[in-house]
């Protein structure tokens, strides 16, 4: 089991000082921030490195940072063999919201990435089946964005009463 600071040291050594940031709010849990384009390589390292072994992806959530005009993806991973957890994030501009998919590394990401695409419009590159999951396939817009306006009609039916 490793503390967050120890994980930070391992990551700095592997990825270089520039590619990892360690952040924390006033309350709650800390997280790491990585550049989006390296996320697949980093995810593979997190899963396979002998001192980390993050073999399960507990949760993958999309977030809309309206003020910064950015979309974020937060990954929560846990190691069932070593017993430690960590959270990490990537942030991408809203007009080019491309994040490499980690579906090939953790299968949980398959549906969670589809959900994040559906709800927030994060586009996961190399995802095998990136289709809407909770809303119908021909739905317009991404409901969890802060500036979302629901469409008035869906296939001729009014959406508000």
């Amino acid at each position, binding site marked *: 089991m490793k503390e967050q600071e120890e994980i930070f040291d391992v990551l700095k050594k592997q990825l270089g000082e520039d590619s990892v940031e360690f952040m924390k*709010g006033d309350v*709650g849990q800390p997280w790491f921030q990585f550049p989006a384009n390296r996320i697949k390589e980093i995810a593979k390292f997190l899963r396979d490195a002998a001192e980390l072994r993050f073999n399960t992806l507990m*949760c993958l959530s999309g977030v809309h940072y309206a003020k910064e005009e950015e979309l974020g993806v937060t990954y*929560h991973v846990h190691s069932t063999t070593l017993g430690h957890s960590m959270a990490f994030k990537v942030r991408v501009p809203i007009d080019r919201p491309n994040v490499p998919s980690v579906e090939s590394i953790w299968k949980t990401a398959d549906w969670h990435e589809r959900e994040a695409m559906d*709800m927030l419009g994060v586009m996961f590159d190399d995802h095998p089946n990136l289709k809407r999951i909770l809303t119908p396939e021909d739905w317009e817009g991404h*409901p969890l964005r802060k500036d979302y306006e629901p469409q008035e009609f869906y296939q001729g039916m009014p959406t508000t009463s």
Partner: protein
Amino acid sequence: MIEEKIIDTGKDTREMVINMGPQHPSTHGVLRLELTLDGEMVKKCRPSIGYLHRCFEKYAESVEDYAKVIPYTDRMDYVSAMNQEHGYVIALERLLEVEVPERVEYMRVIVAELQRIASHLLGIGTFGLDLGAFTPFLYCFTEREKILSIFEKATGARLLYNYMAVGGLMRDIPEDFKSDTADFVKTFRPKIKELNDLLSYNKIFIDRTAHIGIVPKEVALNYAASGPVLRGSGVEWDLRKNDPYSIYDRFDFEIPVGKGEVGTLGDCWDRYIVRVREMEQSLYIIEQALDGMPDEGDVKEGIPKRIRPKEGEIYVRTETPRGELGYYIISDKGASPYRVKARAPSFVHLSMLPAISKGALIADMVAIVGSIDIVLGEVDR
């Protein structure tokens, strides 16, 4: 209801695409499985969800108060509402750094474990029903009814309770709660044996569930399966022990795991029997909690008047009857959460279905869906 499409491949065998659901008795809600069949064999399965989507996450962002999300969490997994609330209030308590009174903690554990039994009874009963065993379903519901009566006395509701509050409980604990619960524990224990005789070791039931829908350990871990699905594959993993929350570290109990007793490790029967054995363990926990629960104490005094966490974020996971329920909450110092994401166990387990149903017979699909015990309210949120 069933739409058939025959694809001519020019060979003697022809594939057929058939929709199971959205209105199908074994889907326990509105779920559509698009099955590509070769004769009776499933070649491909594509679950289609979203029929029950009620915008939980959007709603949580738009309320004017964190506490107003609690009744909505009930409606995610509506057969284990207590466990859904428990996770959410724990997440907020950790964000606010609020101390929870002893009496409240014990009470929460007792209702959470009672809810676990009630939920497993429903899961087991309907699982039997799907496979043609009607009587055990009635036995299960008789027992579940007793738990719901206890809840009704304590909370005023039978299904969706809105009982837990940040730092406390919404209502005082009724005087006869302890004796009612103790009575239930005493009468319920022999019923588990009855259920085993009636269903678990019934030859027809074993024939329908053993060697069916095998989830290998590696697949379960790679998909981050949890709860009885993961334990059914032989992994000793329970968040109440592995990542203790509330006061679960004070109780002594075992984690039942599947062993492949009547079939292959990780088959439908293993997942089923884990649920039965978990009910026994829940009874042990309830007994210990009843002994330890202080008699005096105000359950409402710890509730903060205003819930306004500082800036930060948290991911809290708890063990619900279906597995790991996670809440990811981001606070931006506002009165309502900036983002709430619910990681539902049923959502994850359902995404495993294409991987575990390949090569199964269409009749066995019913057993596989029943054995992962999904609640569509939680899948779609």
